[in-house]
């Protein structure tokens, strides 16, 4: 085996260099989300930064003592002049406003913009898209795979044709149509174009073709009607394919930026996570790198963590498109 170890070492060397380049932005993102603005600016402090206490300037500005506050505090500092009191108050304030950079970045991410709301929107939108996709695609796939009726070939060729159409490409006419019915800036606008997943239909059909007819006939003998067969027989058998499709769908729509960018304008309550991040970037000045990276980390983390936990399933799901 020693004969091969040299080649093996070379391969590892090449792959490690590649891995470093791939991982670089993730490293930058995570590292910046932990560091203070100064450390980011000067590029120091390694991965974690020094985590020295830093002062939150906005917090200071907000709490700056005015004349009334100085007067009110006069009793606490007997015999001091106003300016001395002010200096003392400022010192207290600065102490109260000092934070660890990591804590600062992550709290800012949530307080500066309604990030929780964005995340919730993301969940609502991806979940409803997937739910409706299955609701529409499953019965259709079943009818295409297991029932005989006139026009089946026509509908199937229509599915094959629609597989060619990338939804992003027809965003403009879709937008016009939605605008005409007054649906822009609604959850509906975010969900509607994705309700039909031709790919989902195709995938499920191929899967159902492999389910033996006997199973369905047995269900019919047991007195189930066609609706019951779909939801009580076909759905359970299709779980593996469905799971893969779910991953495919969720990844695509959680990360989607183009479509939300078009149909949601201005109304922050509807922002999906990528839109929220974009908005953040638009407002940001230099000192906000940290919180922004914290936001990016928060948005990217759920899928990455899910991926690391259930790698095999994810790769299966994502590569499903390769089954065509």
């Amino acid at each position, binding site marked *: 085996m020693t004969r091969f170890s040299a080649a093996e070492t070379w391969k590892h060397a090449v792959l490690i260099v*590649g891995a470093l380049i791939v991982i670089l932005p993730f490293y930058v*993102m995570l590292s910046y989300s932990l560091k203070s603005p100064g450390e980011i600016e000067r590029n120091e402090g390694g991965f974690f930064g020094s985590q020295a206490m830093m002062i939150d300037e906005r917090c200071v500005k907000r709490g700056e003592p005015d004349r009334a506050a100085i007067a009110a505090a006069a009793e606490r500092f007997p015999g001091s002049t106003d300016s001395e009191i002010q200096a003392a108050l400022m010192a207290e304030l600065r102490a109260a406003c000092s934070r660890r950079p990591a804590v600062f970045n992550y709290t800012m991410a949530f307080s500066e913009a309604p990030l929780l709301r964005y995340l919730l929107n993301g969940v609502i939108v991806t979940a409803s898209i997937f739910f409706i996709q299955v609701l529409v695609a499953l*019965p259709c796939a079943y009818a295409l795979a297991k029932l005989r009726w006139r026009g089946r070939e026509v509908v199937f060729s229509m599915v094959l044709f629609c597989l060619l159409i990338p939804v992003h490409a027809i965003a403009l006419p879709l937008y016009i149509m939605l605008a005409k019915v007054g649906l822009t800036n609604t959850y509906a606008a975010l969900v509607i174009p994705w309700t039909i997943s031709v790919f989902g239909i195709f995938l499920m059909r191929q899967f159902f073709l492999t389910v033996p007819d006997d199973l369905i006939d047995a269900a019919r003998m047991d007195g189930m009607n066609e609706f019951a067969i779909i939801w009580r027989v076909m759905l359970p058998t299709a779980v593996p394919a469905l799971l893969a499709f779910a991953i495919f769908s969720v990844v695509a729509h959680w990360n989607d*930026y183009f479509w939300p960018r078009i149909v949601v304008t201005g109304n922050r309550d509807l922002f999906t996570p990528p839109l929220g991040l974009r908005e953040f970037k638009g407002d940001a000045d230099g000192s906000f790198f940290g919180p922004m990276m914290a936001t990016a980390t928060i948005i990217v983390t759920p899928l990455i963590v899910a991926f690391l936990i259930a790698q095999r399933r994810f790769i299966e799901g*994502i590569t499903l498109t390769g089954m065509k």
Partner: protein
Amino acid sequence: MPRSFAHIWFVAPAVVLMIVILIAPILVAATLSFTDYSLGNTTADWIGWKNYDRIVSRSSFQKMFVATFTYVAVVVPLAVGLGLGAALLINSLQRFGDFYKTIYFLPVMAALLAMAIVWEFTLHPTVGLVNETLAMSCGTALEAIPFFAQGCARNFPLWLGDKDYAIWTVAFIGVWQGFGFNMVLYLAGLTSVPRELYHAAEMDGARSGWERFRLVTWPMLGPTTVFVVTITCIRSFQVFDTVEAFYPQGGGPSKSVYVMMFAIFEKGIQQNLMGLGSAVTIIFLVFVLFLTLIQRWLIERRVHYA
């Protein structure tokens, strides 16, 4: 069959949605592309081929084609080549293959917009990690290379802000994001190559890895390659997130990164020139359809391989 009309209930929603959401918009876009329609107007004038004329003749649209095709021409071969290379390397490893697979797949999972913003920091001309790292080479032997000499003497490239580098940098990020996906598809393809073929090749006298690759691996990966190339092509044509994140004001330095999806977005949504935007949409669709048809044709041709 005496069975019910259940199938109508099963198929109707899907058919209606397909027509309304996928097919009708194409017809709408095709129609609007011959008008000067804007949202808010009650009427629109029929202006014939004028929108298409503009796209062919105006320099900004010429830049659009140049940017789009440059992007596609860079990203497709690199993302496919690196995907194949990584898959072959990982497949031949005795251990730790899964580790690299996981890492290379990470960019596919991460929201591209978020990663674009991170890249923007990383490539920042002064405080970005890339140029900081390059600057460390100053004063070392690396300065013999003209690129480093120039960088150390004046400054290293602005990357995203430099019109000579912008499109390549954006394309690099496209490759970074996409090759892991191709790698996974190739890995799946590799597992389906029968081991006996490699043994047969060995018995037939294929001594080097290259001979085995030429004789067995590459031909057997043919269908995978066709698919990977088409899907990478279609995805690269659709590039938008990175461009919009880097250049919200339009197309990058001297419009060198003015890609088609961004043009559709800018003309249609931002400037409300729906007719013009629709014309770009139609051209875009033609490209995509053309690519997919080529793919289908190539695959049909190989059907009898079995």
